[in-house]
């Protein structure tokens, strides 16, 4: 199958080409044959030796579009359809969030201290939409793009969980 890796421009290819027996396999990665020996495997993760080197992988999510995993502690998202043009690779700190996205989501859980925008108002990318409090700290949630606030989905004094939608901005 062909893959793209978030944050890296190329397209990659990987497949199992031969079962050598005794948990050993020949895999072809970007045209190069590598020796792989499975140590432990389940639907949650896999541990193997790739050319004698140990790696531990936890599968986080597997959708038709993406496969998210933690490889030796590093989070990597493989993109199975290489034509998608917007990829969020969070760990690098580069948001690159799609401008087409409507929902502004909270990346932290917290209590809503204040709401700084109104429904119907125009906002610019980076404008503060609300302030959340978590672990004795106040954190501003900023608009991910220029647009109009269609809907505010939170209430002052209420709680939001991680990934909850704060507002719809179009």
């Amino acid at each position, binding site marked *: 199958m062909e893959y793209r890796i978030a944050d890296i421009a190329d397209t990659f290819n990987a497949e199992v080409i031969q079962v050598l027996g005794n948990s050993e396999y020949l895999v072809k990665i970007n045209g190069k044959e590598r020796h792989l020996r499975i140590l432990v495997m389940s639907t949650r993760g896999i541990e193997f030796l790739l050319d004698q080197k140990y790696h531990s992988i936890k599968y986080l999510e597997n959708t038709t579009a993406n496969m998210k995993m933690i*490889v030796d502690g590093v989070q990597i998202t493989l993109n199975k359809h290489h034509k998608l043009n917007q990829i969020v690779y969070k760990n690098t700190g580069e948001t690159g969030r799609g401008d087409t996205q409507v929902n502004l989501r909270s990346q932290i859980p917290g209590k809503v201290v204040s709401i700084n925008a109104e429904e119907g108002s125009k906002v610019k990318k980076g404008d503060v939409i609300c302030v959340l409090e978590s*672990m004795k700290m106040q*954190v501003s949630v900023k608009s991910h793009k220029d647009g109009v606030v269609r809907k505010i989905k939170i209430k002052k004094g209420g709680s939001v969980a991680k990934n909850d939608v704060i507002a719809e901005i179009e």
Partner: protein
Amino acid sequence: MIKKILIANRGEIALRVIRTCQALGIKTVAVYSDEDYNSLHVKKATEAYHIGEAAPKKSYLNQQKILDAILASGADAIHPGYGFLSENSDFAKLCEKNKINFIGPSAASMELCGDKMRCKAAMLKAKVPTIPGSPDLVKDADEALDIANKIGYPVLLKSVFGGGGRGIRLVNNDKELREAFETVTGESMAAFGKSAILVEKFLEKIRHIEYQLVRDKHGNAVHTFERECSIQRRNQKLIEQTPSPAVDQKTRERIGELVIKAAEAVDYTNLGTAEFLRADNGEFYFIEINARLQVEHPITELVTGLDLVKLQIDIANGEQIPFKQKDLKMNGYAIECRINAEDTFLDFAPSTGHVPDVTIPSGPGVRCDTYLYPGCTVSPFYDSLMAKLCTWGQTFEESRTRMLNALDDFYIQGVETSIPLYKTILKTKEYKEGNLSTDFLARFKVLDKLKSDIKKDTIEKQDVALAAAALYSTYYSSTIKAIPESSMHWKSKLDRA
């Protein structure tokens, strides 16, 4: 003699205090909020009392609830840990009134330490240098100019009502000062409706260096050397180390003598920390005394061999410090990394939640104080410190490389952590050379370096990720429902495939 201690705290520091009490045969009483029913300090203490809701105000900061637990449990002493009520002199007073041995300074001394202006005055009297500036508010530009010329430019003009960059100006000469005096007054009036101006020497490229001080009820005092805590973000310490690369033996002794003076100036008892700023020219300025056990106390334990919590208890029992200054010596080097639940790239925003899996590093020279265990929860109600990872080495380089390994071994599933940031910091040339300052992260563009480290990691791991994806597609794509969700060994099953 203290026989039973209530620990008015949670997390790793509650566990730290319990450990020493167990070793001394002292009983412990834990307190816990609704949020902490499943926390380790509840499980490890001799007894545990529920004290209210998750919000600190309704539990860990609720003086009456804690007093009730003390009385119900029959504890004869209280250890406040750090944070929460540890530096609340009203609470110390309440304990004194109820004849409960508060393990810390007297309420009076704590109050004095907490009042910056009074404390500064006491230090000036004791000839402990503080940051040069006006001893009090200045009445006009002329007085400010006099002081500025006395202490030397550059200076800061600060409105005591200022904040967030407003009502504060850096000035380099008389002319700038006169102009700025008007601006600062105006800004402060505009923003806060009032103005009251101080002058303070502006220090650049400063280091945060602090001393562990120990003083018993008989007036004996020692210091157990310095800790450098210059690696910070938003004025919060991230990495501490001892000895400081900026302190030689002569300086160590010279500042150490000031520390004893400072402790005497506020009649401090028990353990505390005298904090200093060290200017780039080598001058030290006292800033405050932290009237409690410090988060970073383990690195002092690692180089002195002392159990500081035991020392706290002994002093609270009225015992004399069992050694003299000359008996103490530093053995080796120690570093602490505060492992926080936070997302470095979201401006260090908290990251909380369930931690299904955790691997705690160990090995020669490694000590990790933590409340984490597989299946625990990092709560949004309390601070983000999950673990204090400390390493010791015969040389600084040994302590540093051991820390890098330990950071590599530390696995915390479910929350973002500061571990990747620390790896990047510890690998910089500047950190290795001891070129530290409180603006280290910005000065050396550490977040950019972190980004590129993470990108490098991703590229390094890409073949591995692809191999894992290929295997997954081969074995699970069509049969995902049939395979149990356990991490059992699938070797034999795969052999047959």
